[in-house]
């Protein structure tokens, strides 16, 4: 077993570590291994949780005999699968990256994207150019977290990168598309938030009674499509 190290996360979870930075290549290793583990899912595996550079395996200790150490058992099982670097690494990339390509229509600027102007000013671009660049990139859903269905999207054009608001908004509308540092994300539900909001989608990112409940899954790829309706008399401009 190589390519990752193993840590305990409390009593009930193993944390497999591929690294400790945010990089697309590392994150794709996480998703490749997650897909392989999911395909052979053992009955004690309660949750399989990808993050940027780590993958947690939550073990249902009641699914194992009482005298077995659940984390040792999980580690033993992992080793027995003989996943190797070819399963997760950059070599042998005949293995496709799991995940679908999802298009997300966004209305940029105005009330839907109150921070578009600030992001444009910060980037030294016109607002139109920010939208073009935001839509040109293909993003990877590094993980879903913070809130149910909230995707952390890697792949943002780094010219658009901008730190979060010093003081988070108390209310961000559901479907708001934001920029937080070097990433993009989408708020599934109205609530407080500190990301720079540049637009909004009508797609429902989380609905607990829908199957599956989230629009996106970890490892999916995302493209944004400009769906802004610009009144004929006006045009977005940088200033």
């Amino acid at each position, binding site marked *: 077993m190589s390519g990752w190290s193993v*840590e*305990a*996360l*409390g*009593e*009930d*979870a193993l*944390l497999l570590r591929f690294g*400790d*930075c*945010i990089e697309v290549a590392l994150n794709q290793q996480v998703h490749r291994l*997650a897909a392989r583990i999911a395909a052979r899912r053992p009955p004690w595996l*309660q*949750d*399989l*949780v*990808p*993050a*940027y*550079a*780590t993958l*947690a395996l*939550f073990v*249902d*200790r009641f699914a194992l005999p*009482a005298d077995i*150490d659940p*984390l040792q058992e999980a580690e033993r099982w992992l080793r027995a699968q003989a996943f190797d670097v070819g399963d997760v690494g950059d070599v042998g990339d005949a293995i496709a990256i799991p995940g679908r390509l999802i298009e997300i229509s966004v209305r940029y600027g105005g009330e839907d994207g109150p921070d578009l102007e600030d992001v444009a000013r910060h980037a030294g671009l016109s607002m139109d150019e920010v939208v073009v660049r935001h839509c040109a990139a293909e993003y990877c859903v590094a*993980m*879903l*977290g*913070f*809130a*149910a*269905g*909230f995707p*952390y999207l890697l792949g943002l054009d780094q010219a658009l990168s901008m730190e979060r608001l010093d003081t988070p908004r108390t209310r961000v509308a559901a479907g708001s598309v934001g920029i937080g540092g070097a990433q993009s994300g989408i708020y599934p*539900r109205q609530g407080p938030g500190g990301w720079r909001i540049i637009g909004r989608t009508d797609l429902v990112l*989380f609905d*607990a*009674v829908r199957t*599956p*409940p*989230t629009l996106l*899954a*970890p490892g999916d790829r995302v493209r944004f499509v400009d769906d802004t309706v610009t009144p004929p008399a006006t045009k977005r401009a940088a200033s």
Partner: protein
Amino acid sequence: MSVRVLAPGLLTMLQDGGRTGFRHLGVGTSGALDAHSHAIANLLVGNAADDPVLEITLAGPRLRFDRATRIALCGAQIDARVDTQAVQGWRRVDVPAGCELVLGACRRGARAYLAVAGGFAAPIILGSASTDLRAGFGGLRGRMLATGDVLPIIRAARVVAPSVDGIAIATWWIDPAPDVDFNAPKVVRVLSGRDALAPGDALFAESWRVDAASNRQGLRLQGPALSLADVRERISEPVAPGTIQLPADGQPIVLLADAQTHGGYARIGHAIAADRARLAQLRAGDVLRFEPCVPAEARRLAAEQQQRLARIALAIAARAPQLRSVIS
């Protein structure tokens, strides 16, 4: 049958044994914070240990029962009366049709659990009836109780409470110590986390006061600011109930059942599962200490807690009076 909410209390909601299998979608576990009290309340009324109950926080609701039924209150020591009759926790109470259950302040502890024979009817969403307050689903439309709500009760499948005219309070009760014991020192045992402190034992050298901003997501603690041995920025990684985070202000946060699935703060430890009930019962201003623990010890303590619960289940079953089957 059903229960009508005449007044909701401070923060009352439906919780069961919690939700697993959806953390990869950002859906946390939710569930009763004090799972031990929750289980005993259910067992006392003949329900399955992880059935939905009402979790009551600090100040309780006023409820009206439309039929005679059997109830049990466990967890925090809470002022309770049925009409004018005071009732106590950790025992069976048979209540008549039309009665009012008036729950007051939690005198000791923070969370009381009300179980009703048959169980509260709530849709199973993503495998659980628990209310997920942060995501806004589960329980009663994803929220806490409000005045005027009507909570349907499942007709008890196995047993029904005697149809009493008055109130019948069992003469025996369950002693939940040491799992719930308000006289015991407030000590929580901790497994090491990924991130070391400087000095390494700083978490154990101090006592910690529970901040009023604590909630079901996390217990916020106040004390001398802690420092990390390595202050580099962290990236978000999976976290879980029990994880002890250290934000930049040096004041630790112990995550509870409504924990987010990922967090970017340093993880300086993990409160062991066997001490979660104790954490759930802490109130703002309470002072606690941490003690170091190792995985084998944590597993032993969790297994012993399970054995105590199994013995309590047997004791309750042995006490079952002549129970009638439901005829429908």
